[in-house]
């Protein structure tokens, strides 16, 4: 029996909404815009965070660098033997890699040399490539999407890179990284260690740095200190430091983001407040009439609740969908400049589409909930006054 009433009240709410088309439409638009902005920021930040997490996941616990004249220099590969003898070290991998500036496309490639074990570890960590195995070595390489796009390369295509002595070296594209980890692989070239040495003219018994893996993460600092002792003239950078320096930058940026977020929330509060305090004389009178006709306070609140919820839910959905499309399919054009620095650090790219229920809920929670509550406060106030006075407009 009691279900009837709710059904009728719901349908009356919808009629009411349509009745005040102009007003409700403008609320809807502002609302959608705010959810869009808020959603964009939230999606963007979390997508970047996720990409960064992938980047850091397989990173070594300690990186040992040779320092000469205060600068990073080639490290003798034989040093790895000394590191390996330190207790608690599970694995030491000499790495050869470098940056390559490509003049014509004005972009920086990261080139990493991998063989055997390190290549397998990398492959396990990064979801990439089409199903088939992509072999590397003898000029066969894997390239990132960005490089493939800017050079118009496909699988099996050939391209040249300039050697450090000015000569040309030919490569064949053996595979292209998929978009799943675009931040990491966008401008990456993976080739055999031998090829990297040839390209950058790295002498055989030297590497760029040593990647050290440690059994017990608590011992990282002790081991790093020991490395400094056995290999004077080197610097041991521990993962935490990498993460930390990354987090400081990120924390600073997310501070900015947070400010932006706060601004949006504030604007939202203002909208809600305006709505909350701004019951028009007509609306007040209507509430009085409904009360005089025997509507309970709950009935009136229910009706206004449906009104508020309908507006905020539709606007919320519209805003979230727009934000999603904006971030993941249109390169975050609107928020990226605001969170500048990412575009300096990284070339423009489309983030991997991803939606986190928690985040969507958070946006929901700071928009729909306060708005709906805010619409009910003045209604409640009006509906508790004797209808006689509400109708007379006192």
């Amino acid at each position, binding site marked *: 029996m009691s279900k009837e*009433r709710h059904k*009728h009240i719901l349908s009356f709410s919808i009629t009411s909404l349509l009745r005040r088309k102009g007003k409700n439409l403008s609320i809807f638009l502002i609302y959608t815009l705010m959810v869009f902005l808020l959603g964009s920021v939230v999606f963007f930040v979390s997508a970047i965070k996720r990409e960064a997490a992938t980047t850091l996941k397989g990173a070594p616990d300690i990186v040992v660098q040779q320092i000469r004249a205060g600068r990073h220099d080639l490290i003798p590969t034989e040093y790895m033997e000394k590191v390996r003898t330190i207790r608690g070290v599970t694995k030491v991998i000499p790495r050869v890699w470098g940056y390559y500036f490509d003049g014509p496309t004005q972009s920086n490639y990261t080139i990493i040399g991998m063989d055997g074990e390190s290549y397998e570890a990398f492959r396990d960590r990064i979801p990439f490539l089409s199903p088939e195995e992509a072999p590397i070595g003898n000029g066969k390489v894997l390239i990132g999407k960005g490089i493939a796009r800017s050079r118009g390369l496909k699988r099996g295509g050939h391209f040249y890179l300039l050697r450090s002595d000015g000569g040309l070296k030919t490569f064949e594209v053996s595979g292209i990284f998929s978009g799943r980890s675009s931040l990491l692989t966008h401008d990456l070239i993976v080739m055999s260690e031998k090829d990297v040495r040839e390209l950058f003219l790295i002498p055989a018994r030297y590497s760029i740095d040593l990647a050290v893996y440690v059994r017990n993460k608590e011992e990282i600092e002790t081991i790093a200190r020991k490395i400094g002792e056995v290999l004077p003239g080197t610097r041991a950078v521990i993962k935490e430091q990498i993460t930390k320096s990354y987090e400081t930058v990120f924390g600073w940026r997310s501070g900015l983001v947070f400010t932006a977020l706060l601004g949006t929330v504030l604007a939202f509060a203002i909208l809600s407040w305006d709505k909350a305090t701004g019951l028009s004389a007509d609306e007040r009178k209507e509430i009085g*009439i409904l009360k005089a*006709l*025997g509507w309970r306070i709950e009935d009136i609140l229910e009706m206004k609740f449906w009104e508020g919820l309908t507006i905020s839910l539709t606007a919320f959905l519209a805003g979230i969908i727009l934000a999603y499309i904006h971030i993941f399919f249109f390169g975050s054009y609107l928020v990226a400049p605001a969170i500048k620095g990412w575009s300096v650090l990284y070339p423009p790219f489309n983030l991997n589409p991803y939606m986190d229920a928690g985040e969507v809920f958070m946006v929901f929670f700071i928009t729909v909930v306060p708005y709906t509550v805010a619409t009910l406060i003045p209604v409640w106030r009006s509906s508790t006054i004797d209808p006689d*006075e509400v109708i007379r407009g006192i």
Partner: protein
Amino acid sequence: MIELKDVTKVYYKGTPKEVKAVDGISLEIAKGEMVVLKGPSGSGKTTLLTLIGCLSRPTRGRVLVAGKDTSRLQEPFLTFHRRMHVGFVFQQYHLIPDISVYENILLPLYPLDMTSQEMEERVEDALRKLRIKGKEAYRAKDLSGGEQQRVAIARALVTDPEIILADEPTANLDTHLSRDFLKIMDGLKEEGKTIVIASHDPLVYEHKGVDRVIEMRDGRLVGCS
């Protein structure tokens, strides 16, 4: 049916604007009676009607409607009382201007938990009774004053209340329509409804169906006939 005991209603109490709209009125109206409240503007007719109709509560005194002391009731019960017993026709009709006639009449039925079919039947009934069939799809604001008033009456009747309160119902009607209105009231009286009309229109208080005319001045009763 209706009993007022030394009822006083003060607006803006304790401020310089203080108004004693109703001042110590005692009054009894029997079931099935048709009573007219008469008096000059500002004499407190509307205020008295709102007290009877439980649209407001007295500052002092007691109001008994259908055996219940409404002056002591909590808000939800007051609303319940209004919903179950009273149909109110306002001085300015107070229709919701931009919804249809049909929906306006439907409004008092929403809180009653009826099925859509029951509601429809009731509204059809009221439309027929007040001869506004054919206009149900019009928006209330597009109707003439007389039509609006009939919609207001239809809305007051649709819940089939025992008590009908009408405030200056003929103020905006010509003689012909005023007679129509009185005819409707006569019909309701025959059905056994208790009717209280506030009016200073001679057509109303001299109408032969009226059992009693109560005269008011400055919030007090000054005469009864």
